[in-house]
């Protein structure tokens, strides 16, 4: 499961594309972030924040395949540099603590991006942050050397060269092909010492954090208590951190809510559990902050399964599913409005979101029935048949996940009305991705994808058409739904190469309309992010797409 998660994160947290959207384009009306944003002067200096994590990570190199986790990001965001920070709508803005300017300085013959670094920025070992760090990171992450176990190569593989500008603090990045999401690159940036050799890249950050460059510096690990302590960095050149220290602690999910109720934690992510939400809410001095999360729930349809390879059947199933009912059941008790997600690339809370479901928004039993009849599946008795075969679909779910099972049971009842039999197949959760979803051994599978501020480059692989290798063998790579077409690919590539964010968003939405018709992934809803926090805390909570500024987190005076 861990590896599968890492893989999915890898599939989705990749690089670049849409930026400040066209004026007048409004994101859908859902809360994009709930952080108790408070001005710095109202926050007292001092205090220790205790933050609950879902596990205790070992690999602290976020660009490593094993370090590409939410938990690692939560910690490293306080420590490592990044040129851009996203706001809650996923719009990136320059972080002047690290980079004074970053612009596309040429588009022909090749795209060139020039970064002007903040010369005051220094690593904790005293060395300045220079173009050499950018160069080393590109060389490690471009995917040429398989000895670097990288999480993803998106964007880095499109770079032709990284060169020194007029001095050490200017970086000139030349792209081999246009890459619209270039703002996603070098986030986070690791020092040259971490990326120069595969040895250091793979093993240098396991169980240690040797170098940092943020408002906090590394304090201590306690492997027995599963904690990691960060202290305020006195050498930080920006506005100094309000908190004295942050203690992150890895705990099992049951233990987290208990620890929070006991006053042993100040912040933790509740997840989609109504029971934990009600318990956290009733804890003394606690508030629950909720916002639209960066991830969405969906059903993936296997376009290579014997029955679903017929696109008419996929469309009929999509039309037979009332997504609002599924969302209502999933979100029951989470105090979150049922808002359907009608876009594969942009979340409801994201800049540029447009509903693109069109006539496949469903439910439409009459049309679904007509499509099935046309495909040759005729009603005889309770279940439709074709050539003596029953219309029986496998809904594969990981064991122990109540949410997926109840989605299956509800879908079963819905599709039964259309004469489609749905068989729920529970498989060990460790095998769910590796033995079922990735090899295409399923008909329909429910899971979540993580959205990023850079939607196209991040999810291009999920919808890209398969590559015909030897003979009839098609390799689908990250396209777990195993269906696609050249038209979608063309549009997505155009969106990825588009440097004007507004035009890129337009192309993304055009591609999305095509993806809807393909019925590869059926999006259900954007998941809420539910975070329990101490009521006195400011500038922390449900962050949505926003990159938190850890220096501003603190207790209100």
């Amino acid at each position, binding site marked *: 499961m861990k590896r599968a998660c890492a893989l999915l994160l890898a599939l989705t947290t990749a690089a670049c594309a849409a930026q400040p959207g066209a004026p007048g384009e409004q994101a859908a009306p859902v809360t994009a972030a709930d952080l108790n944003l408070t001005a710095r002067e109202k926050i007292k200096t001092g205090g220790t924040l205790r933050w609950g994590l879902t596990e205790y990570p070992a690999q602290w190199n976020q660009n490593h395949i094993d370090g590409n986790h939410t938990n690692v990001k939560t910690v490293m965001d306080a420590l490592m540099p990044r040129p851009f920070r996203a706001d809650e709508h996923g719009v990136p803005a320059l972080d002047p603590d690290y980079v004074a300017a970053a612009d596309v300085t040429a588009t022909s013959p090749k795209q060139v991006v020039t970064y002007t670094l903040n010369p005051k920025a220094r690593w904790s070992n005293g060395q300045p942050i220079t173009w050499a760090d950018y160069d080393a990171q590109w060389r490690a992450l471009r995917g040429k050397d398989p000895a670097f176990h990288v999480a993803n190569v998106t964007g880095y593989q499109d770079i032709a060269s990284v060169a020194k500008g007029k001095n050490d603090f200017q970086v000139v990045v030349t792209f081999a092909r246009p890459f619209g999401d270039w703002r996603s690159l070098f986030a986070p940036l690791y020092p040259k010492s971490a990326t120069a050799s595969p040895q250091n890249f793979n093993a240098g950050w396991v169980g240690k954090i040797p170098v940092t460059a943020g408002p906090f510096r590394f304090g201590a690990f306690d492997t027995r208590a599963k904690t990691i302590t960060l202290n305020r960095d006195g050498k930080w050149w920006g506005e100094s951190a309000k908190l004295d220290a942050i203690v992150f602690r890895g705990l099992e999910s049951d233990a987290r809510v208990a620890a929070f109720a006991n006053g042993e934690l100040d912040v933790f992510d509740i997840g989609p559990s109504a029971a934990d939400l009600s318990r956290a809410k009733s804890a003394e001095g606690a508030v629950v902050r909720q916002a639209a999360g960066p991830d969405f729930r969906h059903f993936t349809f296997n376009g290579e399964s014997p029955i679903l390879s017929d696109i008419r059947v996929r469309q009929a199933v999509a039309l037979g599913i009332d997504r609002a009912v599924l969302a*209502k059941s999933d979100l029951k008790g989470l105090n979150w409005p049922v808002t359907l997600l009608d876009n594969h690339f942009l979340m409801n809370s994201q800049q540029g979101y447009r509903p693109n479901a069109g006539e496949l928004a469903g439910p439409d039993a009459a049309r679904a029935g007509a499509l099935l009849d046309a495909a040759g599946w005729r009603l005889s008795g309770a279940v439709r048949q074709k050539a003596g075969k029953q219309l029986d679909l496998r809904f594969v779910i990981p064991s122990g996940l*109540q949410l997926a099972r109840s989605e299956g049971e509800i879908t079963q009842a819905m599709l039964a009305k259309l004469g489609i039999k749905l068989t729920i197949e529970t498989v060990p959760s460790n095998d769910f991705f590796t033995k079922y979803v990735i090899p295409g051994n399923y008909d329909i599978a429910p899971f979540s994808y993580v959205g990023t501020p850079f939607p196209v480059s991040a999810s291009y692989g999920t919808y890209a058409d398969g590559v015909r290798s030897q003979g009839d063998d098609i390799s689908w790579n990250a396209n777990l739904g195993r269906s696609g077409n050249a038209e979608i690919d063309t549009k997505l590539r155009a969106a990825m190469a588009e440097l004007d964010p507004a035009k890129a968003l337009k192309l993304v939405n055009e591609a999305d309309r095509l993806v809807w018709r393909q019925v590869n992934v059926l999006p259900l809803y954007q998941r809420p992010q539910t975070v329990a926090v101490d009521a006195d805390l400011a500038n922390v909570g449900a962050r949505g797409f926003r990159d938190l500024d850890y220096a501003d987190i603190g207790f209100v005076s």
Partner: protein
Amino acid sequence: MSASLWGRFTTRATTGLRPSASRFPGISTSVGTPPAARPRMFSATGIAGLALLSFLAALAVLGPILVPWTAADRDFEAFLQPPTANHPFGTTASGGDLLVLTLLGLRKSLLIGFVVAVAATTVAALVGAFAGYFLGWVDRTLMWVTDLLLVIPAFLVVAVVSSGHDDWIALVVLLTAFMWMVTAKAVRGATIVMRDRDYVKAARFMGVPSHRIVLRHVVPNLASLLVADATVNVGAAILAETSLSYFGFGVTPPDVSLGSLIADGAPTALYAPWTFWWAAGLLIALIVAVNLVGDDLRDRFDPALRACA
């Protein structure tokens, strides 16, 4: 008495083993002078147990027919809803009616419990009587198998083997296979004493075939022991089935049993108590009823225990 029974139950439910057969010390006298059991009315607790058991059985058989919902129905207007007029037991997270699910679970658990108990007692009676009557190599072979099965960690074996089968019949066979041994040893002991009784000798001298003597004369005379033991086994079998189902090894969806319902409801037991307590309560009531009847039957048939009581 009841405390020790629970203790024994727990042991059997989780391992399939019974510590010893020493609870039949006076068995020879009881079976030696048929009919040993005087006609005696059920005790008050026995009657209460029988009434409760009959009520639960009637509920399990008739209930699902009377409830307007079926196990596959989902009420899209009511997810995880507390009890209402429409759903007297409340609903699950996917809008399933807990009343019909609980009654179906009760039906499946009762069915498995009874079938396993009857089958296990039958096997025990045959193995024990043949081993005890023939002695010699028959006895050694059968007792070797019995001892072997006694030392196998039954719960683990059943868990591993049954996870490959979706069929509840397979579960019944597996549970039976690990539940007959202790009774078989008791039956063997009683048979060894019985084979020297006059009526058995008489039958033998008249030339009645041995297997016929075992089936016609020995086993019927052990009826009291067997009936009492079968009843106690019902409780053990139900607990074994629910424990396995709780861990996901026994009854698998779309079938439900009390064990699988308890497993589904456990995470929300505090937040949505109705998902947990109906199934848990019915399981407790069922086990109490079976035990009351079983205790009473044993008290009636087993003079040694009655003397102690």
